[in-house]
């Protein structure tokens, strides 16, 4: 049980007065970000990242990850009270959450959602505690071909598990890789795709892309709907909390199932959003009250929230252990680690023990802090949503502009942010997935390096990706993922009429 002793050392690192204050600040900021339209986990963390550069890395990552937990919690508030998902992963929460609020049971729905989120996160953190060191130890044996195979698996999983057109997933991903290639090629020292512009030599920073795609893009979408917030009010007092908690054990199986779905979807880069939908769908099929889903079932709030939070949390496992983030927000956190000079990946567990275990310990503490904050301060955050959009929108655009500028201190980045905003808007309307694009932008250089090194070993032969059982099985799984849409369509055609087609990704 070396993990346990490491974890206790981690608690010692995380439990300083300064860090606990940062934890609460992070949670409050995070919930705020989760509640406000146009600000979400990924771009919220991206904007605040430069402000943490002066802090010690462990404190900074604790605050940033707490912003992430806060954003995960916050999404549920708008879904339940306003029928507006504050975050994409809380869309499924609106299905039963809003009807509950309309019946005057908002307090109950919120308590259930927060508690379910907490349980989901807790299970995921437990899994990280025991699984991440093993994965990291295993990955120490990885060479460039293995790493490239894992990158392939990561990216092709988007194609295999995505809901939309596989070509759009591929196109979005390739656009990300293309943008990542812009600038100085560190291996040969040549300039790529800069076309003589000195400003472009820096390349495209993914933080700017994230702020534009998710921030400005979201504001444009909200604006188009001519949104006016009309919500239900909510009060949570001790009595409601206790009464709801008494009902929860009944839904233990639902929670467990959703946790498993969430953990799986988080480690593979399915992400929190599909996890929430899948958890909702599975709960609906398995529940005795399945046909009543959508009319205000507590179980219909619990399932997606547990799934989303479990996925959102376990997305940090591959980020820490392999250096491959499972979600855009995890990608931003990874960007932060690189800025602090920490190289995420298997060596992190050997070289930066204090940092890793401090972070993992802070995940436990952060989620407890989160649960306390959201249960006590819902009315406050709901009041923020009553501030008219015509004040919130320009302030958020100003925040996004400042956030983009601070990344490199360059005005070009602010213009790029606007451009990415338009791209994000068009992509969202046409159902191009943004997550693979962001991950490709972040991982582009590293994926290319591992590919080049593999090619150097094998002198240009792709057979190196099948040169031993380990790399071979990862690469084969990746190829299966890439062709999964084709495979599942064929399988569906074969057994059409007999069984209802199952959600893709389940079997992967």
């Amino acid at each position, binding site marked *: 049980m070396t993990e346990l002793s490491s974890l206790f050392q981690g608690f010692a690192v995380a439990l300083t007065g300064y860090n606990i204050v940062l934890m609460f600040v992070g949670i409050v900021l995070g919930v705020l970000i989760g509640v406000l339209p146009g600000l979400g986990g990924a771009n919220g963390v991206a904007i605040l990242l430069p402000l943490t550069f002066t802090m010690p890395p462990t404190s900074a990552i604790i605050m940033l990850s707490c912003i992430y937990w806060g954003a995960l919690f916050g999404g549920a508030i708008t879904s339940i009270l306003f029928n507006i998902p504050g975050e994409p992963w809380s869309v499924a929460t609106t299905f039963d959450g809003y009807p509950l609020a309309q019946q005057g049971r908002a307090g109950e729905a919120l308590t259930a959602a927060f508690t379910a989120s907490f349980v989901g996160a807790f299970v995921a953190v437990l899994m990280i505690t025991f699984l991440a060191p093993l994965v990291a130890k295993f990955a120490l044996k990885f060479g460039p071909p293995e790493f490239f195979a894992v990158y392939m698996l990561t990216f092709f999983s988007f194609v295999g598990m995505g809901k939309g057109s596989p070509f759009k997933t591929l196109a979005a991903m390739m656009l990300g890789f*293309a943008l990542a290639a812009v600038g100085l*090629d560190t291996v040969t020292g040549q300039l790529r795709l800069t076309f003589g512009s000195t400003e472009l030599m820096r390349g495209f920073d993914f933080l700017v892309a994230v702020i534009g795609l998710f921030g400005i893009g979201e504001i444009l979408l909200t604006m188009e709907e001519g949104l006016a917030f009309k919500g239900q009010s909510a009060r949570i007092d001790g009595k409601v909390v206790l009464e709801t908690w008494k009902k929860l054990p009944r839904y233990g199986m639902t929670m467990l199932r959703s946790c498993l779905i969430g953990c799986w979807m988080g480690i593979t880069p399915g992400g929190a959003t599909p996890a929430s939908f899948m958890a909702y769908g599975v709960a609906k099929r398995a529940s005795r009250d399945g046909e009543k889903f959508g009319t205000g079932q507590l179980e219909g709030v619990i399932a997606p929230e547990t799934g989303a939070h479990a996925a959102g949390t376990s997305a940090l496992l591959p980020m820490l252990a392999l250096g491959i983030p499972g979600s855009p927000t995890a990608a931003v956190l990874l960007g932060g680690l690189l800025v602090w000079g920490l190289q995420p990946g298997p060596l992190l567990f050997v070289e930066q023990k204090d940092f890793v275990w401090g972070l993992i310990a802070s995940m436990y503490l952060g989620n407890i802090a989160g649960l306390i904050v959201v249960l006590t301060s819902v009315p406050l955050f709901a009041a923020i949503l009553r501030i*008219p*959009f*015509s004040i919130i929108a320009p302030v958020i655009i100003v925040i996004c*502009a400042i956030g983009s500028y*601070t990344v490199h201190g360059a*005005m070009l980045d602010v213009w790029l942010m606007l451009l990415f905003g338009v791209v994000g808007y068009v992509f969202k309307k*046409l159902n191009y997935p943004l997550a693979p694009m962001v991950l490709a932008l972040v991982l582009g250089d590293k994926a290319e390096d591992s590919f080049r090194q593999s*090619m150097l070993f094998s002198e240009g032969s792709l057979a190196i990706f099948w040169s031993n059982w380990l790399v071979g099985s990862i690469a084969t799984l990746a190829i299966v993922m890439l062709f999964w849409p084709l495979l599942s369509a064929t399988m569906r055609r074969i057994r059409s009429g007999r069984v209802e087609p199952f959600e893709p990704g389940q079997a992967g």
Partner: protein
Amino acid sequence: MSDPEEGSVPPRRGPSVALMEVITAAVLFAVGAVVIYDSQRLGSGWGSDGPQSGYFPFYIGLTLCLSAAAIALRALSGGLRAGETFIDGGQLRQILSVLVPATIYVGLIHLLGIYVASALYIAVFMVWLGRYDIARAVAVSLGVGVFFFLMFEKWFAVPLPKGPLERMLGF
């Protein structure tokens, strides 16, 4: 995504989703072509010391072009005018009412510095789109501007672009 309720809504006029699909795919194809062109310029083959600079990007560009072509073909198969409307006039006006001032705002940052430009932008947005009275708009925008100034210049010591006003005040 959001599907508008059928029935009572008057027919929306504007470019169809299919048309936008084709335009977007065309832009992506062009990006892919640029990547391929630049990879060829740098050399996308095998150099004396291993893969050349364009080796990896070449396949990226190629895949981008192929996916874009597949997307465009699929959109074209249903006809360009058929299907849902991508955006109607009213929505476009809403979008532009955010986008155009935001563009002017970023332009103004060059001239006035970020704090003054931000305050102006928020005030104009509130009066113009939110129909607030000028006093309240000025109060909110000044408050936000001063808050950000203190936060970045004083507390976090992250310098942001400053303009003539800040210079006049001696920063």
